[in-house]
């Protein structure tokens, strides 16, 4: 018994020492935050709990994620209850004091910006509404920049020796980002005022930024899958004003979208709801460029 406890003690001691000698270990709940961390802290060891093909509302508190959160110095998540179904369980199981509620090691993007779509009243008969407002804020490049500024400060707080570098990288990135935003917006000027049909409020921030209008939702109620009856209603509603496109995320079942696209003769776009795992859209820049490209491809008749 004594041997065992001695062994365990040495093991604990070893892990604590290693934690200081190594670069920051960062657990990102979603890929967009992992991408942002790679910009601000390229030396950090980053893992993303989810990827573009997964619905971030419905992730399981898997054993692998518990292990990853156990080692993290910082967890970067969306907040606003997007991860309510899994992050609390991970925090509880991972036994890592650094990433508990209220600790500097837990960063919520939604706490850094003002959210849109805050419901006046929350009742589950209206579906699984996001009570704190729409959490899919990373689709607004302005808000993304605000989050980046706050995240750079958080990194500086956690790792004071690297503070000047984090701030410097943020400023350089923000400069480029603003030019990019102006470029994307002028390219997408023709989209302004156009109606789109989409599923869920996933792209609401993007529509607001580009001036698109979501004229119908494939979801009968927030969080519920599209039903045949509801799709019929959507069809009769959009017949008088055909949408630019039917838009779904790459993790949503494409069948309802395909059906509506066939009925309306408008294209179906499967847009990546976040940074992709590989290819040109694996960075924030590349991902926004792809979103704009895909939307523009729908507006030019081929």
């Amino acid at each position, binding site marked *: 018994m004594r041997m065992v406890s001695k062994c365990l003690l040495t093991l604990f001691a070893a892990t604590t020492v290693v934690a200081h000698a190594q670069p920051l270990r960062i657990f990102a709940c979603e890929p967009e935050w992992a991408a942002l961390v790679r910009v601000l802290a390229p030396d950090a060891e980053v893992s993303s709990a989810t990827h573009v093909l997964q619905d971030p509302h419905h992730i399981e508190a898997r054993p692998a994620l518990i292990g990853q959160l156990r080692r993290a110095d910082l967890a970067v998540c969306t907040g606003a209850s997007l991860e309510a179904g899994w992050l609390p369980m991970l925090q509880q199981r991972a036994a890592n004091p650094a990433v508990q509620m209220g*600790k500097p090691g837990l960063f919520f993007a939604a706490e850094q910006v003002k959210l849109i779509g805050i419901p006046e009243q929350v009742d589950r008969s209206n579906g699984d509404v996001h009570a704190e407002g729409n959490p899919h804020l990373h689709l607004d490049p302005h808000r993304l920049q605000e989050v980046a500024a706050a995240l750079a400060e958080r990194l500086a707080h956690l790792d004071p020796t690297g503070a000047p570098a984090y701030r410097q990288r943020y400023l350089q990135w923000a400069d480029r980002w603003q030019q990019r935003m102006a470029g994307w917006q002028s390219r997408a000027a023709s989209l302004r005022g156009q109606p789109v049909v989409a599923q869920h409020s996933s792209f609401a921030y993007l529509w607001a930024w580009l001036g698109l209008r979501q004229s119908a939702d494939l979801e009968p109620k927030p969080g519920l899958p599209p039903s045949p009856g509801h799709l019929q209603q959507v069809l009769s509603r959009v017949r008088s004003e055909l949408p630019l496109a039917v838009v779904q995320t790459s993790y949503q079942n494409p069948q309802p979208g395909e059906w509506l696209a066939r009925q309306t003769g408008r294209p179906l776009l499967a847009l990546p709801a976040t940074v992709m795992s590989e290819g040109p859209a694996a960075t924030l820049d590349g991902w926004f460029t792809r979103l704009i490209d895909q939307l523009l491809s729908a507006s030019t008749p081929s």
Partner: protein
Amino acid sequence: MKHNKSLSLLAGNLLLCLSVHAADAIKANAGLPLDISLTLDGGFSSRDIVLGGRERGFALGHTELGASGNIDNRFRGQAAVALHRHEGKTELEVEEAYIETLGLPAGLQIRGGRFLAQIGYLNSQHVHADDFRERPLLYRAFLGQHYFDDGMRLNWVAPSDFLVQLGAEAFSGKTLNHTNSTRERIGTYTLNARLGGDLGRSQSWQFGLSWLRNQLQGEMKGTHDHHHDHAEGVAGEAHTHGASYTGRNLYLVDGVWKWAPDGNNRERQLRVSGEYARVTGLNKFASSADVHNAAYLSLVYRWHPQWEAGIRADALKVREPHDDHFHAGQLEERSVMLAYKPSHFSTLRLQLTQQQDRGGFAQASNTISLNYVMSLGAHGAHGF
């Protein structure tokens, strides 16, 4: 009985107090200090089954009111009050009331109070998250549906990319042995190891080993108050939380494997889980061959966000002590279920269960049931 009455009064007060808080909590939507949840569970079943936890006809199941939250920066707390029917009477029982550390270093965590023992795959999960109407036979026979008790736990999680978790617990042993007084200060101990991880994007797994030591085994003569005579066979009744078949040691092996295309479990998911348990040290007359065994294998498939279907096969083999000798008993059970989940908060389940007596369980029966499990308020995050 007096004890029960004051308990239900206490629970009733707690219920009232919690529901008042719940109303406040829903109004202030951000940063709730307390998460309140109410789980409604009930339904109809055609017949009673052996070792079943639900009564035939219309009956409520595991109705539960829970509250949890961070107490301060060092502790988290959780409590749950559950409603049961026992011999025709409705009882309220505190199934969980514990505190847990948030700030210990090196992956250590201590929990104290009343909580679900960390053994096997299902025991530490809430019953309302189950895929079938009843817990597997293994749990109904050896753990009184689910084993919770007053005690303490120490856990350690390793700093690795996959899960390595070791845990040790000590409990009073009173709920498992269905007794109010005992000589022993610590009635049961457990040890548990869990490993788990991902295989690529689409698969994840978990494997566990557990040991439960029952110090109270043999202390109470005849284990329970009810003595079976020879004509009765070995069919136990399990509407209480005491275990029907006990021994000095319970060993458990459990494994889970889940598959979802691209890891997108909301749309489609296959869940395969199985457990095996062995109970030894039945009493002083028991030879090494006198052991209880139980196992199950469960397969559940979600093919649409709102639809799941599953099958489960259970087997139980017991040696029921009768003075200095043992009666062999063997029971098999098969279940098929279809679940409709209109939202994240509601489940309607149709299930067929068939029991087959292989000796000693003459009351083995078949049942068809329809039940609901629905939750209001905070929907606690589910485990794996």
